């Protein structure tokens, strides 16, 4: 913070007030019967009014307990909203794959391939259909690794209507 301005000060105080408001909150790990991984991803297209970058997020459940989550501004500007969702989906998938590896190391048998739920039909089509598409041409290559996983059927992508 080399050039703090008044609104920063207000923002910091707001965070502290938020802490006060949530001081009694906790994170509940419930006893579950299912050992399956579920991921949920979503994006807020062009959510930042400063630079029009989108916000992507994911949330991963292990049984009934959420164990990993993230919400953050994406690195690049997405042109269509599908692209923002697609990037969020890719980030979520990376996390789920990491957790899947971890479960293998922990010797917890996986019942079925992890499922990721996404509320954008276009993004799910993009994954299932690895065709060259003019509108996804500029999407960074590393996001496309999700396609490999879907093709190998090691991960399922499902559409969830909102």
């Amino acid at each position: 913070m080399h050039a703090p301005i008044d609104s920063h000060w207000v923002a910091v105080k707001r965070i502290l007030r938020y802490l006060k408001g949530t001081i009694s909150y906790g994170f509940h790990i419930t006893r579950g019967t299912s050992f399956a991984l579920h991921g949920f991803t979503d994006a807020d297209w062009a959510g930042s009014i400063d630079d029009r970058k989108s916000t992507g997020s994911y949330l991963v459940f292990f049984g009934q307990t959420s164990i990993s989550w993230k919400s953050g501004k994406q690195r690049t500007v997405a042109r269509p909203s599908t692209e923002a969702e697609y990037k969020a989906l890719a980030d979520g998938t990376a996390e789920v794959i990491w957790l899947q590896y971890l479960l293998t190391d922990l010797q917890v048998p996986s019942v079925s391939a992890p499922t990721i739920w996404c509320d954008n039909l276009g993004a799910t089509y993009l994954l299932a259909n690895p065709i060259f598409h003019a509108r996804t041409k500029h999407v960074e290559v590393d996001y496309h690794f999700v396609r490999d996983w879907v093709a190998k059927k090691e991960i399922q992508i499902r559409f969830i209507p909102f």
Partner: protein
Amino acid sequence: MSLRPTGHKTSAPLELIFSDVWGPAPLFSSDGYRYFVIFVDAHTKYIWYYPLVAKSDVYSVFHQFQTLVERQFSLKIKSVQTDWGGEYRKLSTFFQTIGIHHRLICPHTHEQNGTVERRHTHIVETGLTLLGQCKAPFRFWNYAFDTLVYLINRMPTLVLDNRSLFDCLFQRSPDYTFLRTFGCLCFPFLRPYNNHKLDFRSSPCVFFGYSSSHLGYRCFDIESHRMYISCHVRFHEHVFPFDKSEQIAKVSTQTHTPSPITILPNLTHSPLFTTQNTPHPASASASALPSPPTQTPQPPSFPCRSPHASLFHHTVAGTCCSSVFPALHHKVLDSSGTSSGSSSASFYSASNPVSADSTSTVSPPLAATSSLASSPGINLVVDLSAYPLHQDTSVIPPSPASPPLLSRHPMVLRSRQPKTANMVSSAAANTAATQVLLSPSSEPVAFSDADKYVAWHDAMCDEIKALRSNHTWSLVPFHPSMNVVGSRWVYRIKRRVDGSIDRYKARFVARGFTQQEGIDYSETFSPVIKQATVRLVFSIAVSRNWKIHQLDIHNAFLNGVLTEEVYMKQPPGFVDPTFPSRVCRLHKSLYGLKQAPRAWYTRLSDFLLFIGFIASKIDTSLFILSDGTNIFYLLVYVDDILLTGNNSAMLHHLVQLLSSEFKLRDLGDVHYFLGIEVQSTSMGLMLRHHKYTLDILTRAGMTTCKPVDTPVSPSKLAIQPNHPFSDPI
């Protein structure tokens, strides 16, 4: 396939020299060595022994050796036989220039160098016997091995028609009246060292062999850690100051005048020595003398094959000594039991009357694991003897009832006595000042401030003692090429919940910011557990109703072993008066060093892997031990450890196994981990940050603010042009 006999006979000394390097020893010797090299003359089998700091020192040591023998015997070394180890490659070119024939053994055929390899085994195994008998810590191996070579050279051997190697080489018989029992109590004449006329003329020392350059004995003062060379020494050859089982035993007060060892006439005149395989019970001192090289008695029940492993066998299973050398033990007990004990106990017991048999307290946790042998799969009966980093300091069971770590090392700090005495006298002079001096209520920054208080001074003494018993450093002469890291004291008052003072804690830290990358540290990264892994493991454990244990490692960073050469200034206030200009060469890591967390992680993970854990490739701070039916997860966050698994009995034994290696506290079920409070509920576990959040709010003065439900105002996301924030202070 058997080896072809070489058919080569030597006719004179120095015609052929065998040489090989032994090491690295898993433990630095007390004087800082890790290797040794021996040179064996093929003609007389005489052995020259040189301890080494590094293997590369062989080059300079050979020059020393060559100059010595060629001058002494007016003969030239003609050939040298070694393996093609890196340390000898540099020598090979040197041999060519001066015409020495360098005989090499075939690769991976160490049996061709059998003479010298056999000597290594002889020196190490019998040297351990010397240490075992006097119960000296293994860091004194250099003195034991050195003494042993001295004895081997003077031992009559069948091969040479009952002449000794010394006899063959020097053409005169050695002086056996000079020999004494290794590790025994002795009192050197110390008047020349006295500072004033009221000093005692002697202090109790341990006899650690014969000086190579003087006609005198090496006497090690346990209290001051100082080595004296003296020829005026009185010996108590049946008292071993390092032997704690003797502490209760009374010591005969009558002084033994130095007398020749009684069995020596037999030794020189009869072939008694060549016919017996075990040390004769009647000759306690014979145990200090190894049998002739021709038929060294192999300790019958030694299960370890390599010299390294056997070194640790003693350390871990302390009872091993007694089972292997029952004769010695009985002898020791007999002599102490029957001696007409007048009141003066040994000096050692006087200073430390408790913890009589620490060796027997060591074995139960390890022995207890054998009951698990019947459980399928994971074999928790791990033979720790093969674990290279195991040390004598770490075998103490960490129960609060056990004697403190320090009591195993009968050390009193040099600076402690006079200073405390001064303090008391000044305090007596001024009673009002006493209160202030004894109980400071603030935490000082500088050593000079802290040293005025008895409480801080004692805290510092404790810390120094702990560091010494941990062999954290050894003193080495300063060299301008060294980057010497600064050091300082950090003082903390530990308070109880009600605010009263619990204890004063002084921590000695290195000023790691003066370290230079590539010189005294290379890698600093130490992995930490990821939060998602913690939650996942918690979730699995809760779903399967497993207990989650939390372990707290005591002074974790001090356990780390340094691989780099790090030099540090001597601790302020505790500078060695004998060697004030020396610097500390660190062997173990200290708080403040850049590589301390990494060194600790490496040490811990090495041990976990050794006892059968597998490190997860996905999260390197997660370790898994499994055999198909039983499974355990271990999470590491620096010195906080979580352990969970499906077999609570074995979990308990795992904790014991860990505590045999590291000083730790089993905190039971996890309650507070990384600032997170863990409460168990009917549904599972509740993780909260209540205390941490409250601390933040208190620090910010926001405890009475109006709470809100969202962290950011949704309507004002944009960065608007605004005024620079004015400094509230």
